[in-house]
């Protein structure tokens, strides 16, 4: 099975600071998803990476997948209290089918709890 290790497990930063969360896989990643979860709630889809070296950004959040497709990082620039929550990486352990459609059956890391102090 695919194991995903997230680091750090928790992170406390001052508002305005930059931060990085890492997600490392024991196997090659064929699809790497980043989600944000507010305490006790559902998951908000942030980004999905497929290709080695791929990088995507949304507002102040940037996610990268390394060339070997075994490590991804999530970087938040100028953090705000609204960024606080649990960040989860998830991986689709199966290869894309011929149509390029994700099966959506994911294995998750243990999560990173982010606290941003005003």
């Amino acid at each position, binding site marked *: 099975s695919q194991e995903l290790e997230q680091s750090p497990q928790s992170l406390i930063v001052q508002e305005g600071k930059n931060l990085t969360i890492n997600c490392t896989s024991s196997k090659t990643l064929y699809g790497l998803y980043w989600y944000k979860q507010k305490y006790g*709630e559902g998951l908000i889809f942030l980004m999905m990476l497929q290709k080695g070296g791929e990088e995507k950004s949304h507002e102040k959040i940037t996610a990268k997948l390394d060339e070997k497709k075994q490590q991804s990082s999530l970087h938040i620039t100028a953090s705000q209290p609204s960024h606080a929550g649990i960040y989860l990486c998830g991986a689709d352990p199966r290869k894309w089918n011929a149509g390029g*459609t*994700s*099966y*959506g*059956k994911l294995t998750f890391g243990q*999560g990173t709890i982010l606290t941003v102090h005003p």
Partner: protein
Amino acid sequence: SAVISQKPSRDICQRGTSLTIQCQVDSQVTMMFWYRQQPGQSLTLIATANQGSEATYESGFVIDKFPISRPNLTFSTLTVSNMSPEDSSIYLCSVAGTVVEAFFGQGTRLTVV
């Protein structure tokens, strides 16, 4: 993106009873999944809800405890049967998008007393 509605959003149940959680999607989707998130833990896949056939369960999860229905391409239910305090968790349904995304409902927070 798909919009997923889960009901109930939370419930407190007596041990030994059962709770059925509903998941409604605003568009037809091929793949629907049910996950469990125990307190302080990450998500664990319970099963894949298959339309028109029996659900496919992951190791450690059985149909008698977590019966699942999928009557059509927009709806599924998960029942947590004969509940014990160990079943206290957040239960989430998920759907696979037509491209690459995987979306989640807002979750059902279950407390068993």
